[in-house]
């Protein structure tokens, strides 16, 4: 069974994000880049499916500039068999729909039985590409997956997604798209052997033209970015306990309107 995992390179979760000089993008100087954590769940799950079935291929795909190679290589080090890098200046300002179109074109070429994504990338938290991809391909799709089992003959997948108070279970005919939620699995660390072997694996560079895609104006324009206003300082209520509690209740009710 061939499984394709779409991954995105994002700033490390510990990054102090700063708005860039043009006011429309973040300042990327000094940022440490990582594979978006939800995408790591997707990679892990793909590898587990392959290991459980004892055969198959896991292909990692990512769209972005040269630096994305590093994220791709960590997926190869985890165990993906090969990778495709959608790397073209034409995609510099790609919005989610442009990204989804590029991914859909690759998926048509590769014809995997299953596509795994993260439920959203932790940079802009749009969480839109998976759904757009499913729509473009006309494939069934389930988001926020906590469990999945592909049936023995690889014809369908049973997926359980997180819903309020429980799990919602679906049977999806393959090919299908699943988006991973935290809790689906515990991603493995790449082993040293995996890391040392990653360089020998293929990373195919693909340009928009290779997929028959031209430059399209993005459907989404960023007007501007604004830094969050600094959080106002907390307030310590002084005084003896009964009076302080009274004041706390009053403040919660009247100032914060929280109760």
């Amino acid at each position: 069974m061939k499984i394709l995992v779409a991954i995105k390179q994002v700033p490390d979760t510990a990054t102090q994000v700063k708005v860039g000089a043009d006011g429309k993008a973040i300042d990327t100087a000094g940022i440490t880049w990582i594979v978006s954590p939800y995408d790591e769940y997707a990679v892990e799950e793909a590898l587990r499916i392959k290991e459980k079935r004892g055969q198959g291929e896991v292909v990692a795909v990512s769209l972005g500039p040269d630096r994305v190679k590093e994220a791709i290589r960590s997926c190869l080090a985890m165990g993906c068999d090969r990778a495709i890098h959608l790397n073209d200046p034409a995609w510099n300002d790609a919005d989610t729909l442009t990204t989804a179109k590029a991914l859909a074109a690759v998926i048509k070429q590769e014809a995997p039985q299953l596509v795994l994504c993260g439920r959203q990338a932790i940079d802009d938290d749009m969480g839109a590409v998976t759904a757009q991809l499913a729509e473009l391909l006309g494939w069934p799709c389930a988001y926020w997956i906590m469990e999945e089992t592909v049936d023995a003959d690889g014809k369908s997948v049973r997926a359980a997604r997180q819903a309020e108070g429980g799990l919602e279970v679906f049977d999806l005919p393959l090919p299908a798209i699943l988006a991973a939620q935290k809790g689906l699995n515990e991603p493995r660390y790449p082993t040293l052997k995996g890391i040392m072997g990653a360089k020998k694996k293929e990373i195919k560079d693909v340009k928009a033209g290779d997929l028959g895609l031209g430059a399209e104006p993005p459907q989404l324009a960023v007007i501007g970015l604004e830094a969050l206003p600094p959080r106002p300082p907390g307030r310590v209520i002084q005084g003896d306990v009964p009076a302080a509690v009274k004041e706390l209740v009053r403040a919660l009710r009247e100032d914060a309107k929280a109760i």
Partner: protein
Amino acid sequence: MELDLTDEQRMIQAMAREFAETAIRPIAVEIDREARFPHETVKRMGALGLMGIMVPERWGGSGADTVAYVVAVEEIAKACGSHAVIMSVNNSLYCDPLLTYGTDAQRERFLVPVAAGQANGCFALTESQAGSDARNQATLATRDGDSYVLNGKKQFISTGREASFALVFGQTDRAKAHHGISAFVVEKGAPGFGVSKTEDKLGIRASDTAELVFEDCRVPAASRLGEEGMGFTIAMGTIDGGRIGIAAQAVGLAAGAYERAVAYARERKSFGVPIGQHQMVQWMLADMATAIDGARLLTLRAATLKDAGKPFGVAAAMAKLFAAETAMKATTDAIQVHGGYGYIREYEVERYFRDAKITQIYEGTSQIQKLVIAREVLGRTAGRSA
């Protein structure tokens, strides 16, 4: 000189850092307090390939280089000095000599399981009267037909209790003094081989330090590493490599304490400002940052020389000396930055301080490193004092 890590080295560093943060740091306090060998994490380190980093895949290892080893040990030591020494002993003091001096049959039997992380190895050179003066071996290995009979005691052996394989040094020919020392691999459970005690220590408390006893312990001649009389050369060559690992451990301990000191200096206030704004605190942090970088560079240089197949003994001695002294100074100052809280267990910097001390002692004390360096500075004969 190349100062950038390769992609592989960087990925290994990142993996080791994440593993140290998520798997080791949470247990570091407990294993130190209980003096408990962390089987659970050491096994995982084995599966990740961290216990046989420089051993080729053919012999169960990861096929990476000494630079990768150094950056990985540093990351592990940042979280826990005990894990770092367990790792360093296995990689440098056991796998390295087995790979360098072992026959294919010996590698198959004694190296593959240890490099693959399924079992641990230890290195047993020191005796009560043979520490810095390691030549003064009293353990006897008497040839008897197809085997040797070992009698003697080894002291302060890291991982001695937990290891499945011990690389043991003993006299096969007393008359030849240290030219009569030979090396043997002894398996745990061999009749006549036992662990008589483990030490209660100041630091690296989760790494067991054991006394090994050999009483008419019969070892097949096929388990002798190298030729008869090569033991001392094997031991010294092995320790040269080991010093790079201990230097990396020292850098990691210094860096771990330093990171905590920086965080604390930003947070803690006195006289209305964060203590990091007091010039004397800045002074300590600046000195730490500079010395740690210097120690790291010396360590990387020694590793690079070893990878290039060039002589690295003196570079390793310099790295180990400077890194160990840096670790002691930086962990002392990290406590100072924390004030009274630094002296309290809960704040953990005191553990780095306790762990750091051993780096000035094992695999050659700081004084012995200076001897090695001075000998090079003055020329081999002139530097030999006695």
